[in-house]
């Protein structure tokens, strides 16, 4: 017994000593990684997991922390003049974690695999727009089977990872899950599902060598556990903690904080059913919400009010389109349709609770503001899986809160997919909006495409067909001695962390 107690004390001591290890970066991470195939399945489209994928794999095209694009495994890319072909130049000197070189064959295989229905890539509809690949040295050419102006932006987005053709073919899908390799800055050393993954720096990485030799992502979905981890020094860095905790920890000796507005927005979907077919009701609902107050009071200032589905870092953002907070105007609009605080218009609003910071509280605040002008909204709490299901069936309530991520910042992946009627993600289905968005899917002139979406956003804002609320802010807490470069795409990349 004595020996055991001694060992317990000894282990505790050893652990404390290990905390001081400067070559290891321990991240208390908010989600668990279920699968190592970054191109297939649920986790492939989960934006919060991408930080881990991006530590191990390379994407075709990469993104800077401000969302601008930069070379990844492709160093050059583009279309020919009539947009019937694309070309891609594969980086020389990149290698897989088993030492084999990354070749154009790997890139072609990854793109072809992603485009096949039987692979189950959720973005297959996009990858299948390219075909008939030819390779000449490091240059790949492919036919454009269906033109999509965003194909290269998607090459920095969900499922756009290059996997090793020979290795994957040899070990198969299950073998790859158990022993994944990529060409990114870190190699998978040990992975315990729902607990942690330990990564080791890959010395053969083509890019700048990351500073930390070992990186540990501890999977801690519970925010209080993440706070405890960073406060006790068991982890060096954490993210996505309540803003109250962020303020407390950032003010504490030995800890620092950084916040960044990220590519994730909070919005209220409007379904064009029942009372929402009345433009006066929609407009009244939009003008009655004081977004500044919500950000200041509920989110302690950590949020950026927005009036369109474009955050300031997105390609089609314009400060010209605004929706003013004007409760008197809301009352007038409602009065024109026969409603008042004594005779309110009634509908249901759905929201998640605890899925995003203060989501339920925000909707409570919104319904409170609505009540003052003559809107009585009944709140229904649903879980995110139900939201997806209802949205896919176009069965959401007249109003429904949701968050929408768009790390490539393109308007097609925000306004396009969320407001275009035929899209399964749209709850607004009207011919006028569809007629405006429709031609933009194939618009070859990039400036015209962006300007087109800005017109769509202005039209949508004017008619309150969706109510954008705010851009979320990512809080990061880290220990003294570290320097962290936050990423607008909501990533926490170990390669962007260094010691002072």
């Amino acid at each position: 017994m004595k020996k055991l107690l001694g060992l317990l004390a000894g282990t505790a001591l050893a652990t404390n000593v290990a905390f001081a290890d400067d070559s290891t970066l321990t991240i208390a991470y908010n989600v668990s990684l279920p699968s190592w195939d970054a191109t297939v399945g649920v986790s492939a489209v989960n934006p919060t997991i991408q930080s881990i994928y991006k530590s191990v794999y390379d994407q075709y095209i990469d993104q800077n922390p401000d969302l601008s694009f930069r070379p990844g495994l492709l160093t050059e890319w583009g279309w020919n003049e009539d947009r019937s072909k694309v070309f891609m130049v594969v980086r020389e000197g990149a290698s897989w974690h088993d030492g084999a070189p990354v070749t154009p064959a790997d890139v072609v295989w990854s793109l072809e695999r992603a485009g096949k229905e039987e692979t189950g890539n959720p973005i297959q509809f996009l990858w299948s727009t390219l075909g008939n690949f030819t390779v000449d040295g490091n240059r790949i050419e492919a036919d454009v089977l269906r033109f999509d102006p965003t194909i290269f932006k998607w090459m920095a987005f969900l499922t756009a990872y290059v996997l090793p053709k020979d290795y994957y073919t040899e070990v198969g899908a299950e073998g790859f899950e158990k022993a994944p390799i990529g060409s990114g800055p870190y190699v998978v050393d040990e992975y315990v599902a729902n607990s942690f993954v330990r990564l080791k720096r890959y010395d053969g990485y083509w890019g700048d060598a990351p500073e930390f030799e070992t990186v540990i992502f501890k999977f801690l979905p519970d925010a209080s556990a993440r706070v405890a981890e960073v406060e006790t020094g068991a982890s060096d860095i954490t993210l996505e903690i309540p803003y109250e905790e962020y303020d407390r920890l950032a003010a504490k000796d030995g800890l620092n904080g950084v916040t960044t507005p990220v590519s994730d927005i909070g919005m209220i979907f409007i379904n064009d059913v029942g009372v929402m077919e009345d433009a006066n009701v929609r407009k009244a609902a939009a003008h009655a919400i004081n977004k500044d107050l919500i950000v200041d009071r509920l989110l302690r200032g950590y949020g950026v009010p927005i009036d369109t589905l474009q955050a300031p870092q997105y390609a089609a953002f314009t400060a010209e389109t605004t929706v003013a907070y004007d409760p008197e105007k809301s009352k007038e609009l409602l009065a024109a349709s026969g409603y008042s605080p004594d005779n309110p218009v009634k509908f249901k609003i759905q929201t998640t609770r605890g899925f995003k910071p203060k989501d339920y509280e925000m909707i409570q605040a919104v319904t409170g503001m609505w009540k003052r002008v003559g809107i009585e909204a009944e709140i229904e709490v649903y879980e995110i899986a139900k939201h997806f299901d209802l949205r896919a069936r176009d069965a959401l309530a007249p109003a429904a809160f949701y968050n929408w991520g768009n790390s490539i910042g393109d308007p097609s992946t925000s306004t396009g997919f969320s407001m275009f009627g035929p899209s399964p993600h749209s709850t607004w289905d009207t011919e006028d909006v569809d007629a405006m968005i429709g031609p933009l899917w194939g618009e070859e002139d990039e400036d015209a495409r962006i300007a087109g979406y800005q017109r769509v956003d202005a039209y949508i804002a004017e008619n309150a067909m969706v109510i954008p609320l705010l851009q979320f802010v990512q809080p990061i807490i880290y220990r003294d001695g570290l320097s962290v470069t936050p990423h607008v795409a909501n990533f926490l990349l170990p390669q962007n962390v260094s010691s002072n």
Partner: protein
Amino acid sequence: MARLLVTIGSIFLTLLGVSVVIFVILRLVPGDPISMMLPPGATDEVRANLERLYGLDKSIPAQYVIWLRNVAWLDFGMSTQFRLPVMEIILDRLPATLELVLLASLIALVLAFAFSILAVWLQEDSATLAIDGLAGLAQAIPDFLWALIFILAVTLFAPMMPVSGRFDPRTAQEFATNFYLLESLVTLRLDAFAELVRYAVLPALALGLPLAAGITRVLKGALEEAMAQDYVMLAQTKGKSRLAIVLGEALRNAMIPTIALTSVQLTFLIGGTVLIERQFSWPGIGSTAISAVINRDLPLIQGIVLVFALIFILINLASNELYRAADPRLRTAR
């Protein structure tokens, strides 16, 4: 032999019933794995393709028949989120949960027996009051709240105590099985054992405290009742000490209701791992169940529910046998 056949038959029928219920419920509640993995821009065609790929395009009865046929060969399908066979995932994670439950039970039993015996032995109002108060507090606070309290307490008072995982991820652990605690004990790797206990103690304590309180209340009551029986008075007249009587005479009879309660509570304990494992990032079947539910991983949920059901049944059977062993009247009864 006939009893064994009846037992096996009832297990089979129970599991079949559970499988039907869970299979149907999972497909009737809103939210399916395809909706979870549909990205912006996915067309109805993409959805149909994915449904076909995951076998969700068939009717519920047809899906059930296919699934049941595979289960008969111990093939529970592939997890949609982990992309590995369900059986492999369950076998990989179950040991962590069983060890946690085992440790929590051990803590609960040690605390319950110690406090109950102490209360009955001392026979002092103040001690009884204190023990009842502690038991009431331990029982009033649910396990997940205990977990939160411990996590906060660690921050304030014991920063060396870990709040996540089974071991320090900075150290490489070499084990032949996933029963880390048992293996390190059996192979006499005491340093590894101590490290594993250090990581397990908080989740086990959070899980075990409410159980300890429940057992304490029942055991203490049963002991007090036993101490009022004639055979105890006989023992007293023989000059035995009170502690010897409590341990030697009353405890055996007090065990019967305690066993019944413990077995029932043990099933709750296993259910409790779902939240506790998530809070402490314990890589067991409980935390896996939560992520399976969040991601609508239907094959994995079905597999886990069946395994939980089987464990519950086995615990009930084991408690029946223990009950029979503890109570001679049941052994002779037909």
